[in-house]
């Protein structure tokens, strides 16, 4: 057994004890059976102290958990593990990063006899790996930040584009409105001058012509001119009031609205040859509203429906009140309203073009919608291939209760 070595440095025992790595043999329980001098030097325990310890005792706490949950099962399953990173904890509690390889020594029955572990110092390497990991994390984070930045950039560009489009559209509308406003003033001047001229000539005829029959005809014409002028001026005032932000003043009263609507319809029809309007009004209870304004709204909607409807087809006016909502629907036959017109339908000067001699100033729907608003109601439009409906809706709950109270007394 005792082979004489030329040099004690070649002695295997010496090689084991002072190898450039640490060796430790473990009992299957983890108890240290034998450790070499290198490990003794690394850890600062005496050989005797080490032999009484368990492998867990020289591992850091996290190393212990990791060893038990990962490496011990691995060792048992495949009989070995290689290149496992562990942290040893020396006598002073200082951490010693190592890489470990281990082999199970098994008996003939396949049971673990002992475990041999070789440990290599790996401070620099572990440090390097840690830095790699940090670099990897930093790269990952930078990538995420870049992605987030990209996403937000896209969003910001999209927002800016949307804003710009909106701005330009607004500018375009503004320009269109300004142009229309000029036309409007011209048309208004024209339209006011015409009836005014006819009143002036009427007055001259009255001044010199004594024929009663002729005089009566002239007076009728003059009255109609006056009515036309005063209607134009009323529209102007309504527009001005709305535009100045005061909104439209309404005087709410409980009224029998059915006859009012019927009368307005009759008046509109009387002024237009060949116009046909069917009404279906079911308003047995009084309605809380501004009678004159609602009449104006109906007049505007019906006039509009006749002007833009299909000749020969009747305009339908349907009104009722259910579930506390008053509805007035005016429908005509005709093609759909183009979407771009629809967007601006209830704005003043919404007409694509203001022409002289047209039947109004293009304020009808604007004023109708202002009347709806002043009644805390809504004016909506539905339009398809066959027909177009304007629907006025207005809450009536309070006045319904009032009506019932009135009925009760």
């Amino acid at each position, binding site marked *: 057994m005792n082979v004489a070595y030329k040099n004690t440095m070649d002695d295997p025992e010496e090689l084991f004890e002072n190898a450039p790595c640490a060796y430790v043999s473990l009992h299957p329980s983890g108890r240290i059976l034998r450790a070499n001098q290198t490990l003794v030097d690394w850890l600062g325990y005496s050989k005797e102290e080490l032999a009484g310890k368990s492998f867990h005792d020289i591992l850091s706490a996290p190393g212990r958990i990791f060893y038990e949950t990962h490496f*011990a099962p691995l060792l048992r399953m*495949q009989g070995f593990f290689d290149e496992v990173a562990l942290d040893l904890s020396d006598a002073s509690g200082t951490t010693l990063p190592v890489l470990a390889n281990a082999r199970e020594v098994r008996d003939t029955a396949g049971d673990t006899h002992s475990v041999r572990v070789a440990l290599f110092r790996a401070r620099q390497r572990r440090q390097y790996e840690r830095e790699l990991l940090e670099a990897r994390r930093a790269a990952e984070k930078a990538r995420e930040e870049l992605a987030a930045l990209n996403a937000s950039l896209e969003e910001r560009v999209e927002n800016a584009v949307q804003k710009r489009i909106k701005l330009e559209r607004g500018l375009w509308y503004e320009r269109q409105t300004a142009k229309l406003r000029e036309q409007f003033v011209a048309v208004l001047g024209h339209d006011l001058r015409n009836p005014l001229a006819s009143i002036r000539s009427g007055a001259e005829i009255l001044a010199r012509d004594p024929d009663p029959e002729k005089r009566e005809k002239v007076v009728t014409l003059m009255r109609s001119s006056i009515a036309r002028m005063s209607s134009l001026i009323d529209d102007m005032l309504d527009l001005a009031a709305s535009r100045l932000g005061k909104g439209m003043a309404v005087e709410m009263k409980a009224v029998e609205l059915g006859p009012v609507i019927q009368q307005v319809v009759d008046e509109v029809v009387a002024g237009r040859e060949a116009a046909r309007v069917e009404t279906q009004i079911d308003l047995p209870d009084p309605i809380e509203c501004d009678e004159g304004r609602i009449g104006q709204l109906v007049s505007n909607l019906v006039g509009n429906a006749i002007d833009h409807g299909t000749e020969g087809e009747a305009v339908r006016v349907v009104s009722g009140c259910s579930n506390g909502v008053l509805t007035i629907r005016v429908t005509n036959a005709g093609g759909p309203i183009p979407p771009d017109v629809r967007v601006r339908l209830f704005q003043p000067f919404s007409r694509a073009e203001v022409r002289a001699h047209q039947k109004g100033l293009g304020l009808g729907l604007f004023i109708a919608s202002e009347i709806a608003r002043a009644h805390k109601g809504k004016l909506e439009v539905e339009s398809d291939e066959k027909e177009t409906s304007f629907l006025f809706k207005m809450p009536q709950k309070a006045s319904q209760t009032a009506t019932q109270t009135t009925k009760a007394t």
Partner: protein
Amino acid sequence: MSIIKRNNVKISGDGQTPMIFAHGFGCDQNMWRFIAPEFERDHRVILFDHVGAGRSDLGAYDQERYATLEGYADDVVEICEALNVENGIFVGHSVSAMIGALASIKSPKHFEKLVLVCPSPCYLNDGDYQGGFSHQQLEELLEFLDENHMGWSAQMAPLIMGNADRPELSEELENSFCRTDPDIARAFARATFLSDNRADLASVRTSSLVLQCKEDVIAGQQVGKYVEEHLPDARLALIDAYGHCPNLGAPDEVIKAMREFL
């Protein structure tokens, strides 16, 4: 995605009574390879991998669901429902002991008995309770997880291992059964080691066996005793084994204790 595929469920055995095995933090269903075959004779043996481990469907991993043990317990209930497990036996190792306990509270009909191998309801020291670890130590563990090579390197790609003296491992992949995506491993470690389920023990109505190793650095004897005392219907079996994985280190002892209990 079927639950069977999601959790890589494997069914074997000739018996009627279902016995479902759940692996702990670190590895996969291979943890049971020395135990499960023993029960195939008289049980319907069900093995599975937790989502994120082994050959489970990583695509099914949901950070929110698996941030706590509740998500894993929901998976166990879903597996039992998918396989119509009733009055079965649940065998859970380490953290899966608590996962099984939570599952039995959620849906008691599935299990008639629980076998809790090295259970711990709380790994943290808290006043008189000695879970075994300080908060700082557990935080260090979570950091340490990142430093190990498991899962990081491309070299970890499966290698076929030729192991002549252990043919049952011939298809085993080197190191792979302890291999986990590092992010998932960190989240599972967090769910495992920072959970405190001590208050849930009293709600477990199922008859339980606590298998405690003599020396276990992760779940010490005082922890096993705590679990036994706080479960309404439990008995403790101290087995002559070292370490936290008696299912690998001392399978015969584990099988013996289980047979006695069943």
